[in-house]
């Protein structure tokens, strides 16, 4: 595929694209939504972040080295774990390690299979394949991990009486929480399954669109998309599984008691900090 076979976007084109933000700003001003400031900040951030990432990736693509690729994957996983924690409505203490482990497990298992066996990328660390595919997988793992832990928190809060009744009869935490865990896993996996139902009919996935713009035939792009969708489904399942067991250890004490963090919400974080000082 010839890298120059598609239309490039010049700096002038980018400036012209700013007109679009002017349109949304006009709507905001007209309807007095008060979003102009956020829009300005959002635009600047999107420009800065994307240009910086573009620059870094360009370096990576020019001089592919396996250790830089691994570093990039590690940074992506860390940011994803951080964001998954940030999306929690309850206390956040101790969840970063859970999210990082869950995302790393789910993403790496599927990435190894896809890069090594399905696509047979040689050498395996070709950034052109690894980075975009990892980006999609890690992004979906992040959503899955955030969803499953949030849901487990609310299920345990909601079913508190039922869970405690089971514990009081001698059930271990894992058994007492089994219904809540099942509900949470279902909630985390539904979005992926739903998108498999409507893909191509309602929306064209970003990767497919991108491949077609850069000159790939739709038939080829579709094949990639199928592999990626199945991979995302598997990665989400593994991530959600690891995350739900990890979160269980945060929501229960080692003595099969429901942790007070469920009632205290975000105040729990301050409480733990204060306790550890003493």
């Amino acid at each position, binding site marked *: 595929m010839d890298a120059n076979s598609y239309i490039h976007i010049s700096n002038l084109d980018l400036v012209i694209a700013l007109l679009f933000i002017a349109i949304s700003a006009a709507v905001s001003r007209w309807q007095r939504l008060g979003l102009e400031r956020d829009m300005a900040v959002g635009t600047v951030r999107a420009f800065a972040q994307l240009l910086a990432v573009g620059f870094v990736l360009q370096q990576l693509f020019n001089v592919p080295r396996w250790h830089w690729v691994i570093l990039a994957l590690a940074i992506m996983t860390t940011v994803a774990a951080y964001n998954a924690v940030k999306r929690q409505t309850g206390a956040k203490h101790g969840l970063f390690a859970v999210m990082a482990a869950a995302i790393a497990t789910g993403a790496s298992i599927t990435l190894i299979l896809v890069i090594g066996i399905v696509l047979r990328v040689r050498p395996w660390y070709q950034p052109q394949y690894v980075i975009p595919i990892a980006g999609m997988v890690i992004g979906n793992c992040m959503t899955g991990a955030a969803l499953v832990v949030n849901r487990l928190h609310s299920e345990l809060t909601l079913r508190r009486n039922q869970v405690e009744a089971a514990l009081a*009869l001698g059930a271990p935490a894992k058994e007492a929480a089994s219904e809540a865990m099942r509900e949470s896993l279902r909630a985390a996996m539904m979005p992926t399954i739903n998108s498999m139902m409507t893909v191509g009919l309602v929306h064209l996935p970003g990767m497919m669109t991108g491949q077609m713009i850069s000159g790939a035939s739709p038939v080829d792009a579709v094949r990639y998309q199928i592999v990626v969708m199945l991979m995302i489904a598997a990665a989400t399942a593994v991530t959600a599984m690891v995350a739900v067991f990890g979160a269980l250890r945060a929501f229960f004490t080692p003595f*099969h008691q429901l942790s007070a963090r469920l009632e205290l919400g975000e105040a729990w974080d301050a*409480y733990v900090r204060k306790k550890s000082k003493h």
Partner: protein
Amino acid sequence: MNAIELSHVSTAKPVLLGDSLTELEVMRDVSLSVPEGEILALIGPSGSGKSTLLRMINRMEDPTSGRIFLFGSDIANLDVKELRRRVGMVSQTPALLPGDVADNIAYGPNLRGEPCNPGDYLEHVGLERELLRRPASALSVGQQQRMCIARALANHPDVLLLDEPTSALDRTASRNIVELILRLNEKLGLTVIIVTHVMEHAQALATRVAMLVGGSLIEQGPAVDFFESPATETGRKFLRGELAEDGR
């Protein structure tokens, strides 16, 4: 032999006051013993820590200091799951497990892969065997409360903790529960701790009485003595129904 013994038990719980978090002292230096085979009525105004005390005995929560013994062994050294099998608890509001009545009753034995005949326990608590295949949620509150007792009994406990088991019931239904508890105590030799705010029930059931006010134990002794003449002025006020929640 004391079935249950508390030694200098204190506990504090983190609570949210507005935005800031403080530790609220919920129990202060409580020492208490319940000899095997006796029925202890745990009484006291609302918020005095009765439920908290029960929940500490089967380790649904842990005290911040002090020790609790079950037949002489510190419960902190027992396997939590085995402790909870031996110390059955029926909570203040009936908590149903998924499934039908039979599933609920067999839950404990099933956990350990032991056989269980749920119908026997249902009869034990005075419910019809026909109810076995009903969803637990399709029972009346009084039936649910009795099912919860049957569920605890299926674990063959040594001690039964009952948190206001008659709070949601009318006079006849609560009378039935009182008689059930007496029967269980007599037949199975079960040691019972029952929280109740109905003094009539406490008097009918208890061999011993313990009274909590604001997290402190202010009365403890044989039931006959307490109901005849409480040792403290607070105790006397409580029996006359004149005690405010803050214990004054």
